C-alpha cells in the first residue's frame, strides 16, 4: 500500500472529527479527562499514540511541526514521530521552537515561552493523577466528580512525614482552574510553573483513551501545603555548554571515572544560546 492510500495526517476525517470533539470538550472543561475512542496507530501504545492522534487532528497543511522527546528533537522516538507526519501529512517540520505551530512533546515543556498561535501536544502514559492511589477507573471518576482529592493530599503529607519533602519529582499533580486535579504527564516538576502559558496545551493518552486540555492563560496550581510550598527544583549547576542557569539539565556521565557534565535538556534552546555567543564551562574556545 502506498502512502497516498492514507488520508492527510493518517487518520480518516471521521476519526479526526471525533478527536476534535473530545479536544473541544477538554478545552471547555479544563483538566477534565474526556474519554475518546482512541484508534490503533501504526506505532505501539505507550509510544505517543495519544499525542499522535491529537496532533493528527490539529495539523493543517500549512502547519509547521516540531517533535521533542526529553526536550530533544533528535531522540529516536521524536525522529520517528516527526518522520511519520512528514510522510503522511507532508507538513513542514522544524527544530526551532519559535517557528513551530504545533509541538508534540514527551516529558518536557520547551524553555522558550510559547505564544498564542502555538499548540503544545503532550504524550501521556497514565492520565489519571489518582491512579496509583486508587487503581479502579470506576472509583477515580467518582472522586473527580465529587472533587474528592483528600487522598492525594494525604499522600503528599505522608511523603513529608517520611522524607521531609514531597517525594514526587515528575508528573507532579496540579489543580486546574480551581477544579480538576490533573496529571501534567511526566514532565519534571521544574516545568510545572510553565503550565500557565499563552499556548493551548492538549494532552493525549492513546492506550487509556483520554484527552484533556489546558486553555491559554488558565490558572494551574501545583499541589502543596502552606508550610511546604511547591519547589520547582533542578540540578544546581549551570549548563556546561551554554552557561544557562535557569534551564532544566540532563546529567551526562562523560568518563570511566564517573565524571559528570550538565547540559540543557532542551537542545534547541541550548543551541540557540550558543549561537548567540553564550558559553559554558566545557565550551570549546572560539577558533577566532
Amino acid at each position, binding site marked *: 500500500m502506498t502512502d497516498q492510500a492514507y488520508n492527510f495526517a493518517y487518520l480518516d476525517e471521521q476519526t479526526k472529527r471525533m478527536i476534535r470533539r473530545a479536544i473541544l470538550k477538554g478545552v471547555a472543561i479544563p483538566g477534565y479527562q474526556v474519554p*475518546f475512542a482512541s484508534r490503533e496507530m501504526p506505532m505501539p501504545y505507550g509510544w505517543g499514540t495519544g499525542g499522535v492522534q491529537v496532533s493528527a487532528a490539529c495539523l493543517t497543511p500549512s502547519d509547521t511541526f516540531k517533535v521533542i522527546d526529553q526536550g530533544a528533537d*533528535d531522540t529516536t522516538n521524536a525522529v520517528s514521530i516527526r518522520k511519520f507526519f512528514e510522510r503522511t501529512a507532508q507538513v513542514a517540520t522544524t527544530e526551532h521552537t519559535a517557528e513551530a505551530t504545533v509541538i508534540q512533546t514527551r516529558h518536557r515543556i520547551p524553555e522558550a515561552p510559547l505564544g498564542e498561535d502555538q499548540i503544545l501536544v503532550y504524550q501521556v502514559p497514565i492520565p489519571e493523577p489518582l491512579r496509583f492511589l486508587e487503581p479502579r477507573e470506576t472509583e477515580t471518576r467518582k472522586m473527580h466528580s465529587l472533587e474528592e482529592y483528600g487522598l492525594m493530599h494525604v499522600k503528599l503529607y505522608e511523603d513529608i512525614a517520611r522524607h521531609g519533602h514531597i517525594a514526587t519529582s515528575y508528573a507532579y499533580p496540579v489543580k486546574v482552574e480551581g477544579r480538576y486535579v490533573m496529571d501534567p504527564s511526566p514532565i519534571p*516538576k521544574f516545568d510545572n510553573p510553565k503550565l500557565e502559558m499563552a499556548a493551548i496545551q492538549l494532552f493525549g493518552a492513546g*492506550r487509556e483513551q483520554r484527552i484533556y486540555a489546558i486553555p491559554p492563560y488558565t490558572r494551574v496550581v501545583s499541589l502543596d501545603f502552606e508550610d511546604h510550598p511547591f519547589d520547582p527544583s533542578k540540578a544546581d549547576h549551570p549548563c556546561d555548554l551554554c552557561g544557562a542557569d535557569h534551564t532544566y539539565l540532563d546529567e551526562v556521565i562523560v568518563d570511566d571515572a564517573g565524571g559528570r557534565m550538565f547540559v540543557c535538556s532542551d537542545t534547541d534552546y541550548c543551541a540557540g544560546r550558543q549561537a548567540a555567543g553564550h558559553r559554558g564551562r566545557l565550551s570549546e574556545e572560539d577558533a577566532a
Partner: protein
Amino acid sequence: MYVAVKGGERAIDNAHAWLAEERRGDTAVAELTVAQIREQMSLAVNRVMAEGSLYDPDLAALAIKQSRGDLIEAIFLIRAYRTTLPRIGHAEPVDTGAMACDRRISATFKDVPGGQVLGPTFDYTHRLLDFALEAEGLDPRAETAAPQEGEMPRVTEYLDRDGLIQAEEHSDEAPPDMTRQPMEYPAGRPLRLQALTRGDEGFVLSMAYSTQRGYGRNHPFVGELRIGRVSVEMDIPELGFAVDIGEVTLTECETVNQFTGSRTEPAQFTRGYGLVFGQTERKAISMALVDRALRWEELGEDSEGAPAQDEEFVLAHADNIQATGFLEHIKLPHYVDFQSELELVRKLRREAAQSDMKEAAE
C-alpha cells in the same frame, strides 16, 4: 569535548535494514511464501486473525512473515491495518447452529444428535517429535466420507428446553463496538465478550485456569465445543434483504456451569460463552470460563474478589497490543524524569547525612 548524540534518523534506518536482513535469514535457504504460512502455520494464522480482529488469512500470514513469527507483533500489524479500513456496515448475527462442523464434541453427554466429531485435533496425539517431518515431500491424506446429513443442534438447547439451564436474554439491540467507543466500566456483557475474544490467548487462558484452581471457581463442563464454517450475511439496503457475503471459520464453546437456585427459583445450571475466529479452541474454552466468572453479579452470586471476577481488572489488561506497547515503552529514554528523581534522592540523602552528623555531635 562533549557532543550531544545526533543521528537518530540514520540509526533508525540502519536498524530497519538490519531487521529486514535478519527476517530473511540465510539466503541459501528458500524463502517462505505467504501461502506456505497460510496453509502450514494455520493455527498461528488463526490466532493472529482472532486477536487482530480481522478475518483475512492472507493478511495474517503476511503479518507473520513480516514479524519473523512474533505473533503479538503480527497481531499489532493487523490491528494497525484494520483501523484504517472503512466501516461499510455490519453483518447479520451469524448462526452457529447452522455451522458446517469440522469438529463438535460435548463433555456433558455421551452421545448427542449429530454425534461426537473429533475432527483435526491434537487431543489424542502422543507428543513425540515426529522426525519423519524433517523429510520433505510428505503427502498425508486422510480418508474422507460424505458430510453428515441433517442438523447438528446445540447441546445446551436440550437443557434449555427443560429449563435446566439459565435462559439467555434475547435482544435485537445493536451491541456497542469497543473499537469505536472508549471503554467505560461497568462494560456489560457484549463489550466483555468483545474484549475477551480479541484478548491475549495467554492472559485469557491464565485467568480461566485461575478459576479452575479456586480463584472464583465456577465448576465448568464443556457443554459443547464446535469448530466449523458459518456463512456471513449482510443486509444490503438497496436490495432490501440480506445476502451471503462469505464464510468464516469459528470456534464456539458453551460451558455448563455450577447451578444456582433459591427458595423462589428452582436450581438451574448457568453458562459461559466463548466465540473466536478460526480454529482456536484453547482460547474459546478459556473465554467461556472467564465470561462465566465475570457474570457473578448478573447471576446473583457473591464475588470472592478473585481476579477473574473483576471486570475492570480483566478487561483493562486482556489486550496484548496495549500491554506490550506500554511494557516496552520503558525502553524509551526517561532521563528527564530519572534526573528529577536523582536530584531528589541526592537531596534526601544529603539531609539524612546532615541530621546524622548533628545527632552524633550532640
